[in-house]
């Protein structure tokens, strides 16, 4: 297992795309957050109901796409280049290979996720009080000393890891980079669109089961009663998606010719 982990780590580390994608994920996440914060202005008296932490973490919506691509490439490029046959010849226990890839993707995502989330929170802490969403207006300061915010921050990092694992599983099953990227991004972004377009109770059900909307419930820090799903329950739904996709991937990997 250690050898397999090290082998997968070497493969992933030595691709230039990996570093670029990780950097891209961090920069995009923080960049989108900064752009959204710059456009956020809560006029006094326009009523509460805003969630400063969730606003500060908006960048995750986009950053997850890059993480998903990183995870897809970790396996699909091996199929594209034929490398997968060498890998499986060297390590015939295929599930170990898949596990090693999952661990590596998760570790890299953890590193990028911590940086991205920290950047988002710092940006939110610096700018939101001036936008009318600070302690002076009855909102909690965006700070990890505030336990719901800590939960949202840690949960967002876990969210990114689970998205990476989900994407890895899908790509292992599909084995083609282009189709996998399209499928993963469609799986992430289409259900929220569909939810916007239909009315309750269908909307609520979609938001409870779709990977992105359920998983991002972890970012809610205010008005928890009106969320479609509780924070940790939502993350558990996403975890179920990730596990199911990895199980399917493992099954297909064992049964199919490479």
């Amino acid at each position, binding site marked *: 297992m250690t050898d397999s982990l090290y082998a997968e780590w070497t493969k992933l580390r030595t691709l230039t*795309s990996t570093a670029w994608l990780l950097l891209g994920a961090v920069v995009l996440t923080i960049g*989108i957050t900064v752009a*959204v914060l710059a*456009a*956020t202005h809560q006029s006094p008296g326009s009523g509460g109901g805003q969630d400063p932490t969730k606003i500060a973490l*908006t960048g995750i*919506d*986009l950053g997850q*796409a*890059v993480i998903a*691509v990183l995870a*897809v*490439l970790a396996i*699909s*490029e091996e199929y*594209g280049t034929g490398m997968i046959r060498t890998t499986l010849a060297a390590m015939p226990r295929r599930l170990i290979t898949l596990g090693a890839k999952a661990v590596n993707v998760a570790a890299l995502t953890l590193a990028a996720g911590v940086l991205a989330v920290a950047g988002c929170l710092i940006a939110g802490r610096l700018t939101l009080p001036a936008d009318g969403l600070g302690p002076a207006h009855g909102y909690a300061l965006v700070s990890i000393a505030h336990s719901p915010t800590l939960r949202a921050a840690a949960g967002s990092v876990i969210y990114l890891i689970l998205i990476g694992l989900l994407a890895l599983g899908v790509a292992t099953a599909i084995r083609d*980079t*282009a*189709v996998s*990227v*399209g499928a993963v*991004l*469609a799986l992430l*972004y*289409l259900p*929220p*669109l*569909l939810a*916007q*377009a*239909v*009315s309750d109770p*269908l*909307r609520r059900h979609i938001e409870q089961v779709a990977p992105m909307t359920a998983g991002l419930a972890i970012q809610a820090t205010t008005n928890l009663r009106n969320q479609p799903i509780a924070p940790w329950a939502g993350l558990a739904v996403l975890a179920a998606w990730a596990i199911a996709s990895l199980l399917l991937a493992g099954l297909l990997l064992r049964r199919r010719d490479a």
Partner: protein
Amino acid sequence: MTATSASLRPPVSPKRAGFQSVLRAEWVKFRTVRGWIAGLGVAVLACVLFSYLVANGTHSGTCTGTGTNCKSGHPFVPTGPDGQAVADSYQYLARPLTGNGTITVQVASLSGLISSSPVNVAPSLSSTRPGLAGWAKAGLLLTPGTRQGSPYAAVMATAAHGIRFQYDYASDRAGLPGAVSATSPRWVRLTRRGDTITGYDSTNGASWHKIGAVRLPGLPATVDVGLFVTSPVSFHDGTGHQTQATGAFSHIALAGKVSGPWHSRSIGMSQADFYPTLGAGSMHRSASGFVLTGSGDIAPAVVQGVLGTNTAASTLLLGLTVGLIALIVIAAMFITSEYRRGLIRTTFTAIPRRGRVLAAKAIVIGAVAFAIGAIAAAASIPLGEHLLTSNGDYVFPASAAAVVQVVAGCGLVNALTTIAVLALGTMLRRSAGAITAGIVVFVLPYVIGSSLSGSIETWLFRLTPAAAFSVLGVLPRSALVDYPYTFGNGYYPLPPWAGLLVLAAYTVAALAAARVLLARRDA
């Protein structure tokens, strides 16, 4: 020997080496990949399926009273002479006129009340404040019948838009500026000659100025002519408020063959009518003429919060996005798979002018994507309209021009997006990068926009490629109705052609960058 080797060389005519053969080569490359053709089918099916889901999941009922008494279905919405949805609610005091004639009146004053409660709450005359909606109207109206949606011609004093000559709901000519007051009353006159109605105004009742004339074809010999007052919903502090106007008329002069007495009616002002009105209409005689009180509007119907924002096109938005994702994958692979397999080197050996290859690919993928978008839209529109109607939702009648706009617009959105993604693929050479970039740039602005609120959303639909979704904007808007035509109310910030231009700018920029890189880099 020389003769033999010459005969082995295939005969190349200069014509066949032209752009047409490049185009043909790219088309063959495209149509012979089974997965892509299947992907096109997926795009159409996904578009239709998601439009179905959206339309089927849209149930809007109407709520009356305090919002607790809701029922499904929608109230009757009149249809004007051109087939558009119209508001036709007013207080009318009229007499039948046979043949040619002229009616003249002095509008002595125009005043009104504005409800303090928002439009979705049943209004009460006890909670009002004095004031007038900008398009409060008092004047003369000629119509063949008072059925809602009938053709008409009218000349009127308005609260904020001076004297106006209007006919058939959408047409408007400006007359004298300024508001009516006791010190400066306005005189208006309406003349019928055959099928032609002419409107005049005057400040003194002696010197008349013609505002405009209209031919109402098929006008019967006997029509109703008389006085009317109406007052539309006024929008301020974010919501609509019903209003009521009272107009005082004097110096009524009716020349022509009139029959019967003056007959006062409230048209379209009952609870069952869709247009929100305030109070009951009334009429009483004054010393010098009549005083009419009315509420409503005679104008095109816009969303106004009571009709919902459903159009068959609005149900298409999600399906269009879904189909676009499939097309983005295909468009990216159309070029990146050549790089992956090394076919690009063969291609450039056969056709050294690389710009031509890019142009041919752009034409092929653009034409295919246009067809897919148009087919999907043409299939989804009738389906969406049918489902919405059977769910009891009100669907604004779509003119033929609107249907063409949506069908061609969906095709163009698809074509421009796929060409831009093709250019991205040419620049990045990798399918993963091209597809991600394509989805992030062309699909995500809309996804993120729909989860944000307020001004960011408006700017996303102005500046990002999502602007092109304005081709789906077919909700009626009118200069004759004061309404916040905002994104939150279902109106796109840009007109369709401007939205398409924004997307086209992105496409042209991507193509230009791809062209430069293609020429400078080794394949």
